[in-house]
């Protein structure tokens, strides 16, 4: 584990000329172009979804297909909110705790899901997410119940400052997950996904690495959740435990290219703005776009945009190719 951290640090330092770096610079300059506060709001949401999508993807890389990621977001949101409400903890201090509770939940979920595969795992994670939501609703004295809680917005509601805070979170998340992708931990996860029996036979402890994957994929969504409640100044179980938060990263990952780094990012960049735009022009049933995109994507572009790009540019199979569960 120490080895992994050391590797992470050296990767950090060598990554300056990286496309990720350029991407971050572009994102940092964005508020100059988007003066309209609503657009900045959408941009912040996009950042959140980028982080959640890339995080979800890491879990998928280990072969664990979660339909309950909203749970991590939700618990993060409630952690920072309740810490503020009961202990007057500054949200900026509260957010790391959000990440912590999210990780604790991830461990719990991971352990429960250890014997489960594929569909069973998906349903179990969905069930856990729903249970958490129900618990929150049923304890209104503590959590505000279905009605929710109002809290003072961060930075007095200044959209630009909030955007940069979220950008900072996103940068930390993306660089960490980017470094993980280049580490030996990643190889273990992909091996687990491809063939669990083979993974065992070459010395990979499946329990350890499945749990690592859960932890890694829950950390940043939890952090985002912690940020989100203070960003909108309001929290309620239906918005933060919304199943959409569980489903969106999947569509985004599949559209952009599952099992790749940029896939979920591209997916989020496309889908989230489209969704928000539709929400304004078509307040009822705008989510139909999710459904249609999902259908079209799976049907015609099952490996996502990244794969189509690779084919188009004629790149050879120099990097792990995503899309298919390993077949014999």
């Amino acid at each position, binding site marked *: 584990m120490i080895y992994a951290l050391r590797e992470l640090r050296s990767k950090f330092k060598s990554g300056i000329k990286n496309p990720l770096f350029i991407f971050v610079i572009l994102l940092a300059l964005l508020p100059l172009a988007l003066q309209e506060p609503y657009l900045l709001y959408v941009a912040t949401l996009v950042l959140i979804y980028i982080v959640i999508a890339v995080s979800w993807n890491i879990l998928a890389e280990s072969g664990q297909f979660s339909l309950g990621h909203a749970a991590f977001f939700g618990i993060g949101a409630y952690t920072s909110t309740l810490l503020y409400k009961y202990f007057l903890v500054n949200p900026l201090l509260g957010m790391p705790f959000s990440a912590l509770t999210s990780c604790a939940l991830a461990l719990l979920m991971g352990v429960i899901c250890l014997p489960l595969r594929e569909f069973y795992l998906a349903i179990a994670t969905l069930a856990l997410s729903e249970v958490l939501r129900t618990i929150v609703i049923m304890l209104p004295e503590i959590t505000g119940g279905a009605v929710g809680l109002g809290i003072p917005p961060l930075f007095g509601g200044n959209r630009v400052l909030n955007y940069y805070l979220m950008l900072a979170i996103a940068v930390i998340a993306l660089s960490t997950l980017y470094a993980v992708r280049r580490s030996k931990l990643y190889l273990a996860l992909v*091996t687990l996904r491809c063939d669990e029996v083979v993974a065992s036979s070459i010395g990979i402890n499946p329990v350890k690495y499945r749990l690592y994957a859960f932890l890694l994929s829950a950390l940043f969504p939890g952090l985002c959740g912690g940020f989100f409640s203070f960003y909108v100044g309001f929290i309620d179980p239906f918005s933060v435990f919304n199943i959409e938060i569980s489903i969106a990263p999947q569509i985004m990952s599949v559209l952009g290219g599952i099992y790749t780094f940029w896939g979920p990012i591209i997916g989020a960049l496309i889908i989230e703005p489209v969704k928000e735009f539709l929400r304004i022009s078509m307040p009822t049933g705008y989510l139909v776009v999710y459904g249609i995109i999902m259908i079209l994507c799976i049907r015609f572009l099952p490996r996502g945009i990244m794969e189509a790009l690779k084919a188009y540019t004629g790149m050879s199979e120099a990097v792990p190719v995503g899309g298919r569960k390993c077949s014999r």
Partner: protein
Amino acid sequence: MLEVKDVYKRFGGLEALKGVSFCVNKGELIGLIGPNGAGKTTLFNVISGLLKPEKGIIKFKGIDIVGLRPYEIARLGIGRTFQLSRPLMDMTLLDNVAVACIYGGRKRVGLKEARSIALEKLRLVGLADKAHLTPKSLTLLERKILEISRALALDPELLLLDEPLSGLSPREIDMHVSLIKKIREDLGVTVIWIEHVMRAIMGAVDRVIVLHQGAKIAEGSPREVAKDSNVIKAYLGEEYAKG
């Protein structure tokens, strides 16, 4: 090196292994044969930790390994291949071997070092030029070779090969057998080899163990075993001396 004593394994009502006992000494090349359903792969699964026997003791280098998880057994130095080769399809050949180096090798290595070790191992078996491709583009023989390289990346002291020759042409069989012999001679790895292709295995191994319906029915040199009446009876009705 490997001591198997009185191993019993049952699946519901079926007794797959009945009191199997034998020893394997360091550096030996042992053949494990028997008609289909004899329990050979089950025995491998028990040794490598994928299955837990109901009864019996298995000692590897003096260490009791029954009850250990498969990955712990791999790290102790037992590598294996599978009957139908299972390459990691979404990873390059290089990574296929590198991941074994990292997680199963004797010492802790980083990713870069593991990849260079892996490249060396691929070079030894002649797959270095395909190191950056995925197993999708490999022929059957190449996949089997990859499977063995991956197991060897563990620097194992004991290698379990499960029907490595199945599906190969006669020429490929000869190539693969010489690879296996090389592994024993050059690398000093002890090998237990399950096989149905008799002509190949009988000529190459030091000793043969014969299983039939879960029990060991014979053990000895290839010539002794070939003449053993129990063995002939077990194989009667089957194509004898295939290949």
